């Protein structure tokens, strides 16, 4: 198929290669440095799969067991590597099955490119077999999307897709390619995209704002930082650490900011939010300057906005102008890439100790320790707690593992108690709260960080939402460690029913299958722990194994997560019981 054409202009001999649209797709992925992608084949994307077959030694395609799994695996890969995750699916049901993962990536700012097949362009709009308007469906949950109906568009559009997905505030992009565009041929030239005239990924830095922020921070008596995933996405962990170590400002993370700063760092004062730590939640309403860095004041962080940090002057560092004043009115907005803005502000900041102020965090931590943490980690009752499972995982992992959590009580226990030494180690579905995220995301994370231990911590409910991905573990031999914390309930919902619906447990009790038998059916080593004395050994055994491993821990059925800010309450009304 290769033809050599001599172009007359400027004495340059360029080789023009006529290739099919589907081969062009593969070449684009290779140009973008993609080594790994997740997906599921079907009619409308078969030409691309045919090329994947030919290029299999250059580009590794992982067959998941459901397209949602492919999207979450791509997310897990992206979150652990900081690179763009790629997922692929056929038209119609294949494409719609990706949507949950796309929405999850959008709200958690995860760089991802999804490629879907589409019916032939002559059939568009005719309700053809497996035609869905995936562009229409995905518009509200993508950073950008585009339907390719002509093969010649492929290189430029895919270059744009990767650029948009990874630049600025990252997010998911969906490219829908009609079957005829996959079959047709084009002259392939690839040029990486570096700018789009209507798109300004990174706002310009305004030195006046930096100075205003520095002045406020320097005169603050009780400053507090809340940092989010922006630090991780902006690769600004070092700059951030330098800032807090110079100023000694107590720093709390959001759920997605977790692991941007080692959890053992003396200035790390825990996590804010609904089930965050007592001290940073309470003291949000006592600080005089609140410095938000790469976070977006989600309602799960702020509780009732009318009584959120009203006494404080708010400084907001962000890359996305639309986040400024969206939920919380700011005094100073520092727009820009946080890696740069933090470097700019550092020399303007004065050294400080904030000794007394830091003591206040310590005091409240001690209260939380006595009434909550001690009982979670060193329970005296018979039943196992989710907290002690996390404690044992920490003992063995020493904080070096990647923890991928699902959604529910176990997620909150994992986030509250997991120790993290390195960045990009906490992978969870934050903004969307997608049950079923963890198992496929852990597979993606393990493939993105093969040298690290990847431990999925999942509830018995969420596990069954994507349990079929055990098939992906079996086929790829991805050595993920799967810990299911089985309370035989949809625990988080049950907790709310207990606290706010007079214990009416409507459809939250689960009759579960024998998870060990299921794991064994997939040839995955498995163990069940029901007693405290078995726990530590079982976790050691799991982490010592070179292969995938399934561990079910039967925990107390009706434990609750505390502290808790009930919906509609203020952060200062955080409850310890």
């Amino acid at each position, binding site marked *: 198929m290769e033809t050599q054409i001599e172009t007359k202009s400027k004495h340059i001999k360029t080789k023009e290669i006529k290739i099919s649209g589907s081969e062009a797709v593969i070449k684009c992925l290779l140009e973008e440095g993609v080594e790994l992608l997740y997906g599921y084949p079907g009619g409308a994307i078969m030409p691309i799969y045919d090329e994947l077959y030919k290029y299999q030694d250059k580009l590794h395609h992982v067959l998941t067991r459901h397209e949602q799994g492919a999207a979450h695996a791509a997310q897990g890969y992206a979150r652990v590597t900081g690179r763009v995750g790629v997922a692929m699916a056929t038209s119609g049901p294949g494409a719609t099955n990706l949507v949950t993962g796309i929405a999850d990536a959008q709200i958690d700012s995860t760089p991802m490119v999804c490629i879907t097949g589409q019916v032939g362009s002559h059939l568009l709009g005719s309700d053809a077999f497996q035609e869905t308007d995936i562009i229409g469906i995905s518009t509200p949950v993508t950073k950008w999307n585009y339907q390719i109906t002509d093969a010649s568009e492929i290189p430029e559009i895919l270059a744009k897709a990767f650029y948009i997905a990874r630049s600025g505030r990252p997010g998911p992009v969906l490219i829908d390619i009609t079957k005829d565009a996959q079959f047709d041929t084009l002259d392939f030239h690839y040029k990486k995209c570096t700018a*789009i005239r209507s798109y300004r990924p990174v706002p310009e830095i305004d030195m006046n704002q930096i100075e205003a922020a520095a002045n406020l921070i320097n005169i603050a008596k009780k400053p507090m930082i809340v940092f989010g995933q922006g630090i991780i996405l902006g690769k600004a962990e070092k700059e951030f650490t330098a800032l807090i170590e110079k100023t000694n400002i107590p720093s709390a993370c959001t759920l997605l900011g977790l692991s941007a700063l080692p959890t053992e760092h003396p200035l790390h004062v825990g996590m804010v939010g609904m089930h965050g730590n007592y001290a940073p939640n309470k003291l949000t309403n006592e600080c005089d300057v609140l410095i938000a860095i790469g976070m977006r004041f989600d309602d799960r962080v702020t509780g009732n906005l009318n009584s959120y940090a009203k006494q404080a002057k708010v400084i907001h560092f962000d890359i996305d*102008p639309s986040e400024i*004043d969206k939920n919380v009115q700011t005094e100073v907005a520092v727009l820009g890439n946080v890696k740069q803005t933090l470097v700019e502000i550092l020399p303007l900041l004065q050294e400080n100790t904030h000794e007394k102020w830091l003591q206040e965090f310590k005091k409240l931590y001690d209260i939380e320790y006595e009434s909550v943490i001690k009982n979670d980690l060193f329970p005296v009752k018979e039943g196992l707690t989710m907290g002690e499972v996390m404690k044992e995982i920490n003992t063995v992992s020493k904080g070096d593992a990647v923890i991928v959590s699902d959604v529910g009580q176990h997620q909150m226990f994992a986030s509250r108690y997991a120790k993290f030494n390195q960045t990009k180690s906490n992978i969870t579905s934050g903004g969307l709260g997608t049950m079923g995220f963890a198992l496929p995301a852990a597979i993606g994370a393990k493939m993105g960080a093969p040298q690290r231990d990847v431990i999925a911590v999942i509830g018995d409910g969420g596990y069954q939402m994507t349990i079929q991905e055990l098939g992906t573990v079996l086929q790829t031999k991805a050595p993920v460690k799967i810990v299911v914390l089985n309370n035989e309930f949809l625990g988080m919902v049950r907790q709310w029913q207990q606290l706010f619906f007079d214990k009416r447990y409507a459809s939250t009790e689960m009759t579960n299958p024998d998870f060990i038998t299921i794991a064994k059916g997939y040839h995955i080593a498995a163990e069940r722990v029901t007693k405290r004395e078995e726990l530590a050994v079982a976790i050691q055994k799991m982490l010592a194994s070179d292969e995938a491993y399934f561990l079910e821990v039967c925990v107390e059925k009706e434990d609750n997560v505390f502290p808790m800010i009930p919906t509609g309450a203020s952060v200062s009304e955080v409850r310890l019981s």
Partner: protein
Amino acid sequence: MEENKKFTISVYTENSVGLLNRVSAIFLKRHINIESMTVSKSEIDHVHRFTFVVIVPETLAQKVVKQLEKQIEVIRAFYHTEEEIIYQETAMFKLSTEFLYDEKIQNKLKLRRAHIVTITKNFFIIETTGLKEDIDRLYDKLKPYGLMQFVRSGRIAITRPKMAISELINNVN
């Protein structure tokens, strides 16, 4: 509670299919009723201009504008108060030809600077351009004659303040 005001939102965009969906979804998500909408080309080649009229608190107008600008193919978005713009709407009325020589109608047309654009054996068509209120008044006057059809365009508006789109595009190019 912050009071509602009328704002004209101008959105300069690339000319791309599907953008209308993406842009209108931003209003939809916040349950903002779009009073009127017009899409046209703009002063710049290949750049389109959406003109929306909404009645919302100013802080909401600000948030919407930022979220519009966040869309990849939106070049810039602006909101303006009534005082900051010159605006017009166009309307057409279809009436039965039996009223063509009705003096009252003739007078009203003169007063409103409306004119007749087509006359046939059975009907004639009046066109007028003006403020929404002017058109509403003419509508009320003509209604008793039994309007055969009525249609009004969305608002089009030119702003007094500068909207430096060309500079912006040149900077990027």
